[in-house]
């Protein structure tokens, strides 16, 4: 393998039902930084069905070139169909770097693809930069969050990484940007299409995605029961906030998984984060410590959450939450 034969920064553009996912635009933003330090181009790989009209928008968000794969086989995400199409694009074009959003789709596709390419894949990177000798430095949390590791993939190409939604920032849309759009037609081997999609169910929970919320009221073991969470909901209401939780509450079945903050849940960075009755296991901290302002209430003054809190209160959440709700409601009037 001649490393110099591989160039450009490729981004997998994830769409669901034809809707480009925010993480794809965030990755295009980061890809621009990387491509600029390498003196190379940003290329968007855009698979789906009936999507080609949206290719121009990817240029506006930072791509120099879009390789659009518009095929009926790619209407819904299925591992093998997507792996075949993208594998062929990569083998034909030899990118130096491939970036994928760490969504349930990206985390299914990434490893399948990297194994087919016999190359490395670094999951859930929080920082990507180019080393002096031109390799990709991929930094990710390890050991549940506190230890950070910088990973390199020096002898294999492409260098692949996944990045969680909300970690990188998308660039402002530049409608004057121009770029190249090419269509790619894969040779599908349909004998390998073994998995059939029967139904795609969307559970409209009528709530804002916690990773997009400005204020989060988050509860943990200290809040305890379903009744405790009722109090949390009341507080969220007066603050116009969303409710989230630590893993303990999800495991206990008190709240749904899509409300979970942390290493195995979502990464959030709201303007205000209330950690109520959350001790602050490093898995949890990894998902919220970038929040702008953190208020923690916990009865254990040695709880690790106080190490990241901007304001800490040692006390009983079950007394403080209703009182705070009441006072905030009065303030509003």
């Amino acid at each position: 393998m001649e490393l110099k034969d591989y160039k450009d920064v490729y981004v997998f553009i994830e769409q669901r039902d034809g809707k480009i996912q925010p993480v794809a635009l965030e990755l295009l933003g980061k890809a621009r930084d990387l491509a600029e330090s390498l003196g190379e181009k940003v290329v968007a790989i855009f698979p789906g069905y009936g999507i080609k009209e949206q290719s121009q928008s990817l240029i506006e968000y930072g791509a120099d070139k879009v390789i659009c794969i518009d095929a009926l086989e790619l209407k819904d995400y299925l591992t093998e169909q997507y792996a075949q199409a993208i594998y062929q694009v990569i083998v034909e074009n030899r990118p130096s770097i491939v970036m994928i959003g760490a969504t349930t789709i990206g985390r299914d596709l990434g490893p399948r693809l990297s194994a087919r390419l016999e190359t490395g894949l670094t999951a859930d990177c929080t920082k990507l930069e180019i080393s002096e000798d031109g390799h990709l430095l991929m930094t990710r949390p390890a050991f549940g969050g506190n230890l950070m590791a910088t990973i390199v993939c020096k002898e294999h190409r492409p260098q692949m990484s996944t990045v969680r939604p909300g970690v990188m920032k998308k660039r402002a849309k530049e409608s004057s940007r121009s770029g190249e759009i090419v269509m790619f037609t894969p040779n599908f081997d349909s004998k390998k299409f073994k998995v059939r999609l029967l139904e795609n169910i969307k559970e409209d929970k009528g709530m804002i995605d916690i990773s997009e919320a400005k204020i989060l009221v988050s509860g943990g073991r200290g809040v305890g029961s379903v009744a405790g969470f009722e109090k949390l909901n009341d507080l969220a209401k007066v603050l116009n906030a969303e409710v989230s939780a630590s893993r303990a509450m999800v495991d206990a079945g008190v709240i749904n998984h899509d409300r979970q903050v942390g290493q195995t849940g979502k990464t959030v960075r709201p303007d205000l984060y209330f950690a109520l009755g959350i001790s602050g296991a490093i898995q949890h901290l990894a998902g919220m410590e970038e929040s702008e302002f953190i208020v923690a209430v916990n009865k254990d003054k040695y709880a690790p959450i106080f190490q990241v809190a901007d304001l800490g209160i040692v006390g009983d959440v079950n007394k403080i939450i209703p009182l705070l709700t009441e006072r905030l409601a009065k303030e509003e009037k």
Partner: protein
Amino acid sequence: MTMKIVVCIKQVPDTTEIKINPVTGTLIREGVPSIMNPDDKGGLEMALRLKDQFGAHVTVITMGPPQAEAILREAMAMGADRSILLTDRKFAGADTLATSHALAGALKQLEWDLIVAGRQAIDGDTAQVGPQMAEHLDIPQISYVEDLKFDGKNLFTIRKQTEEGYQMLEVESPCLITVLASACKARYMSVPGIVKAYDFEVETWGADKIDVEEYRLGLKGSPTKVNKAFTKGIKSKGEVFEVEPEEAVGIIISKLKEKFII
């Protein structure tokens, strides 16, 4: 014919028990127990329920140091029929790709209709080894599995978790699934199971037992390498108050006003 299931499990430090030294900002690893990875345990339970219902033969396999035998015995006590410990110095330093080659090599020595793995391990959280094994074995994969129904012959109907809800998927055996811990609550080890598990011989396989080129294994076979590892350091500490609820609420509200949040 009895269905054959192989469950891939991993021994991990219970990362929920790891704490940070508030002074140095380093991890305190001493006294942290080793456990069967939670998603793997959910997968094992799913396999054992298929065994209860249809009479499957369940093999558990793990790659790791000799002490990883403990989770194989736990799996046997829960009801697995056979256990294999894949251990060799040649596997040391493996990244996910090299790990998947070693495990896929071992799986090629076994018979299976269904391979089960956990979605991800709590020490690395990569969720890669399952799909990578499926690729090496050239079988379909379904990840993030929440539920599985078997028709008793060869068809699996699977519920997969997505960000927006879930998908229902269908696939024939052979296939590989990666399972969420929340998919099924694992059973406890039974007393006769524990007794049986301690008499059991755990099979130990080294690199010579699997048919994988040496350059694909361990550190040598790992395209990714750790360049450096570091702790994030400690964020400058905010103020902590230990006061009565009334006063605490007052402090919170004045702070939020000061920051123009309310």
